[in-house]
């Protein structure tokens, strides 16, 4: 049937089935920025378009309905070279980060301002009520509207965008438009899905319906008859290589406990087979025709079930060690069960015992905790339980791989391009020189894209079929077959004296890693190593055990164990203050660490190796707490006019790290091009966080070049050099420092070559804007253009290319205080976050506007797990909330009424230009701050997240 319509002012006709989805029709027209993020559920708003001036979800409208209509799509607003005022304001406000939904948001804001030239906060909230933003929060959307209106009316911005830092520097510490912002907000080719070729084959994975089962046989004969099927992969035709999917440094502190396909499935959603076909429909149909004979086994879903005597074992195969094998290994392996169990291979001992479902364990102590407990005025002891939650990046996991010239080229949405290359190399058997990983723009990572969850299989499929292969997870697969935050039980015992001194702390952590051991040791370690060092306390002990279960897999998630440890330890501290009759703020101020304090507790808390006793470096903790207490009016009781609503306040101190000292490694290559501009190749992975902009600012600052003379190429394993990747808050600190080292080295080369060309001494030369070398002695100048041109014109010394490598033993720790004021309805149990103030020390915030938005975004994620988000499983291990609507991630209407992010000015000794990390830490504070505020409001301690109305009413004895 013929459909005539106008798309972005152009007449278009389509001869199509009118029941086709509007989005599919728009894709035919090339409007690829109309995306699907929620299995066409109408939640995320990535598919927003305007039909005759009304916003609709293009996945929920039929093509036939738009016959004769005028349609506007996000890519019709303005191109990256000619941005509209709204698009530019969004970039300048700092909200164009991972940006999968930024084009749709730009369309909505444009629509709003066209229809309402003076919108209120409520109007903006209403306009954005159907769009889900996970990266940057919603606060700076209000700012973007304000900036756009100011520029429309007066030609320029009047409102401040973000505070500026370091007046002596030109671009560092100042709001400067993010360099990849234009491409992203305009909806141009940026993400993996935009690079698939017309001959692409689609891969669909058949997943286990059982939480635990052996596979007796797989019959794919009917499936192979489906027209268009290229190959079907199962455990029977793929390599026996054992590996793991965690994107960690090699050797990894995670067991190699899986293969591409296993003959034992260990969770609902585990891989059983993969169909590669010429169309998505054929792949799905073939999947449905594969017959699998399962031998269903009993399963365990909680750490309590996993640790019970005689519990079913998640792994019961042969154990191997690459290093440090115990003497009784041969004896231990006599217990191994069915050969279909496969193996568990440790790179080094993790203190595991698969016959007790223990994936890893660790413990340590300083001082004498038991003695401290026995001799203190008060002791509290409580258990805090956290639920399983999912990152829900707007862009679900996706990979596109193809063979080119005998090499495997992998387009990946990843935080770890070099780990992807290594692991794809393991499963294909290809050496690293035969694999090219290209990190595209990443539509949200938050730790879930630290793991190699689909690149292994997609890379292998492209390699064995020789066909281009695209694999794109559904939203449901994100929940059941990706990675999640480890559910954890944190038991805290804490003692103190009436003088306000905390005397002893014991943390016992039981974590649920699910069926495979990705990050199984280090996430729970972080629960202790990023919380205990907040305290000046001589007696501390931790004991952690991590259990295998048959839940959906767990892995890295922003905060990496710390949100859970912080929830337990700060709630316990508030409970101790209550018991001692001391104001919680006074207890915090008396016991928090400060610069120079030696952290004995870290000696046992390394990342799978020995830790080191280090002093606290730059530390804005005290100022953050003071600032937050002043802002929220600590100590002043707020009373609601409605007697059902009780108001309370709470806060938590927080910390994280800036990469992994002694483990992380970053490299960069800075090149002076022939016209005097610079291309910097950074191994670092910008996942929307502004890391490329940081690298560009570093070059601009050191070489005194304008930003538009600098291009950053990053995360491309062919053209860049090794970097461990964007995780553990390492981006700014490690990759940024590598860019700094490379640029400093380039500057040295420039000065040396200039000295030769100018006939001057190097000591007399320096660089200045807008990119030239000058002599402090003779005042002669030489532009980078002339310098570079001469250097490559037949007689020079060649192109100036400098390499920078960065490693360190230094630990630069960001600190902060997160403050909440909540209202609790004691009749209904409803909880409202009235105020949330996030006060953080990020060292020098290199991109202050982006930093603030990352704080807002991280707080929104953590308000999500504190109050709403929960992956609920039934008794057979099926996730009942594997879609966005049922899962409950917060939207703009759940944002705190009064929400502020504040950067404390601290200069760090080791970070590039004094910078520390910013984003990950901001996930740590909400749960304890809200939990403590709930107690202040209505007198109950909610010791499990999410803190729901039902739990409030139960705690109040009302149900």
């Amino acid at each position: 049937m013929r459909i005539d319509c106008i798309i972005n002012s152009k007449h278009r006709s389509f001869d199509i089935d009118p029941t086709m989805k509007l989005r599919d029709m728009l894709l035919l027209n090339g409007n690829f920025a109309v995306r699907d993020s929620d299995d066409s559920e109408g939640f995320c708003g990535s598919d927003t378009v305007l039909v005759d001036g009304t916003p609709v979800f293009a996945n929920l409208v039929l093509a036939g309905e738009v016959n004769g209509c005028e349609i506007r799509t996000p890519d019709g607003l303005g191109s990256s070279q000619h941005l509209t005022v709204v698009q530019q304001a969004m970039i300048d406000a700092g909200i164009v980060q991972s940006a999968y939904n930024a084009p749709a948001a730009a369309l909505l804001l444009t629509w709003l301002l066209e229809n309402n030239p003076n919108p209120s906060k409520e109007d903006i909230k209403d306009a954005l009520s159907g769009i889900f933003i996970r990266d940057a929060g919603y606060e700076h959307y209000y700012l973007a509207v304000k900036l756009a209106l100011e520029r429309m009316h007066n030609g320029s911005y009047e409102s401040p965008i973000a505070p500026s830092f370091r007046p002596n520097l030109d671009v560092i510490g100042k709001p400067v438009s993010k360099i990849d912002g234009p491409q992203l907000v305009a909806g141009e080719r940026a993400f993996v899905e935009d690079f698939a070729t017309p001959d692409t084959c689609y891969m669909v994975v058949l997943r286990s319906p059982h939480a635990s089962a052996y596979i007796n046989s797989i019959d794919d004969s009917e499936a192979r008859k489906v027209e268009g099927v290229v190959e079907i992969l199962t455990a029977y035709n793929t390599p026996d290589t054992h590996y793991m999917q965690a994107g960690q440094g090699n050797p990894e502190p995670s067991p190699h406990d899986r293969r591409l396909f296993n003959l034992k499935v260990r969770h609902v959603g585990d891989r059983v087979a993969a169909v590669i076909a010429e169309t998505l429909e054929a792949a799905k149909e073939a999947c449905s025709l594969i017959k699998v004979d399962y031998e269903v086994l009993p399963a365990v879903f909680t750490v309590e079930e996993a640790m019970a005597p005689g519990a079913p074992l998640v792994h019961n195969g042969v154990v191997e060690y690459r290093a440090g094998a115990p003497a009784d290994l041969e004896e231990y392996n006599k217990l191994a069960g069915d050969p279909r169990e496969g193996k568990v291979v440790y790179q080094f001992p993790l203190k595991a015992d698969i016959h007790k479902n223990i994936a890893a364990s660790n413990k340590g102590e300083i001082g004498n905790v038991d003695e401290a407990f026995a001799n203190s005025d008060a002791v509290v002891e409580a258990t805090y339980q956290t639920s399983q939650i999912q990152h829900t990046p707007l862009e679900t996991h996706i990979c596109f791989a193809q063979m080119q010239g005998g090499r495997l080229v992998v387009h990946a949405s990843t935080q770890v391009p070099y780990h992807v290359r290594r692991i794809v190399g393991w499963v294909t058997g290809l050496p690293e020189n035969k694999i090219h990983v290209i990190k595209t723009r990443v539509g949200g990572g938050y730790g879930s894209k630290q793991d190699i969850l689909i690149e292994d299989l997609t890379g292998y499929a492209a390699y064995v079929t020789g066909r281009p292969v695209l694999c794109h997870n559904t939203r449901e697969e994100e929940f059941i077959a990706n990675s999640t935050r480890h559910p954890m039980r944190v038991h805290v015992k804490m003692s103190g004296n009436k003088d306000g001194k905390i005397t002893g702390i014991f943390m016992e952590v039981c974590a649920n890693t699910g069926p495979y051991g990705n990050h199984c040791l280090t996430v729970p370690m972080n629960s202790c190593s990023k919380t205990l060092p907040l305290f000046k306390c001589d007696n501390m002990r931790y004991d952690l055990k991590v259990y295998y279960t048959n839940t959906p897999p767990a892995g890295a998630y922003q905060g990496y164990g710390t949100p859970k440890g912080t929830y337990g330890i700060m709630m316990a501290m508030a409970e101790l203050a209550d018991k001692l009759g001391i104001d919680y703020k006074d207890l915090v101020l008396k016991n928090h660490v400060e610069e120079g304090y030696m952290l004995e507790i870290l000696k046992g808390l390394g990342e799978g190796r020995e830790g080191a006793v280090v002093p606290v470096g730059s530390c804005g903790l005290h100022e953050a707490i003071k600032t937050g207490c002043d802002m929220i009016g600590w100590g002043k009781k707020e009373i609601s006019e409605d007697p059902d609503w009780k108001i309370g306040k709470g806060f938590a101190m927080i910390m994280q790290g800036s990469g992994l000292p002694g483990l992380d490694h970053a490299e960069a290559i800075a090149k002076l091009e022939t016209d005097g501009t610079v291309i910097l190749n950074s191994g670092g992975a910008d996942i929307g966080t502004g890391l490329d902009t940081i690298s560009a600012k570093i070059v601009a600052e050191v070489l005194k070049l304008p930003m538009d003379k600098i291009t950053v190429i990053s995360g491309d394993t062919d053209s860049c050099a090794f970097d461990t990747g964007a995780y553990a808050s390492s981006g700014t600190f490690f990759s940024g420092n590598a860019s700094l080292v490379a640029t400093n080295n380039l500057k040295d080369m420039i000065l040396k070559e200039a000295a030769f060309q100018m006939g001057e001494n190097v000591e007399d030369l320096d660089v200045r804007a807008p990119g030239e070398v000058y002599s402090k002695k003779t005042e002669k100048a030489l532009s980078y253009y002339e310098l570079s041109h001469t250097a490559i014109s037949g007689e020079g010394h060649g192109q100036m290319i400098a390499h920078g490598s960065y490693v360190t033993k230094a630990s630069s720790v960001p600190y902060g205080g997160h403050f909440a004021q909540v209202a609790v309805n004691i009749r209904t149990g409803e909880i409202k976050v009235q105020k949330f103030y996030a006060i953080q020390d990020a060292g020098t915030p290199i991109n202050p506007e982006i930093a603030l938005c990352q704080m807002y975004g991280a707080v929104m994620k953590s308000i999500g797990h504190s109050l709403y988000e929960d992956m609920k499983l039934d008794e057979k291990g099926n996730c009942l909330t594997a879609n966005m609507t049922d899962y409950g991630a917060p939207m703009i209407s759940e944002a705190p009424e009064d929400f502020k992010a504040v950067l404390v000015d601290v200069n760090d000794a080791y970070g590039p230009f004094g910078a520390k990390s910013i984003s990950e830490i901001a996930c740590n504070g909400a749960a304890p701050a809200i939990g403590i505020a709930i107690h202040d409001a209505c007198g109950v301690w909610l010791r499990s997240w999410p803190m729901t109305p039902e739990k409030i009413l139960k705690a109040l004895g009302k149900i």
Partner: protein
Amino acid sequence: MEANISFRLNGEMVSISTDPLRRLLDVLREDLGCIGTKEGCSEGECGACSILLNGHMVTSCIIPVGAVDGQDVMTIEGVSKTEGGKIIVQAFADGGAVQCGFCIPGMVIAAYYLLSNNPNPTEEEIRLGISGNICRCTGYDLVVESIKLAAQRGGDVWKR
């Protein structure tokens, strides 16, 4: 915008000329007289408009009629004339499953679909089977009991 649409309805071929984007529910009720199919929520949530499309249970309020061209549609009018359908209808009546009755055609479709695919369902499977059908009168228990009754009475009927 009209198109010729033909499909099998309760075993008989029907042909109509209509806007292919009209809801199947409306076409069934207004053009084809199948008023047993009810409209509850209009958004695929309540199950009152359930029908069988190529043997699969779907909600007809969110399906454009153009999508069933050449397909096989069974409504409550057809299902209640089958041997199994008769057993379910009688079991619902005997078991006290019917109060206001508005949801019942959809419930019968759900029960028919369930028992056709699973002749001996557990109570949990029955509850899962009607989890897409909202009933505000009965509290579901008697519906579940009636489906158990239909399973028992049907015996071999469901195994064909």
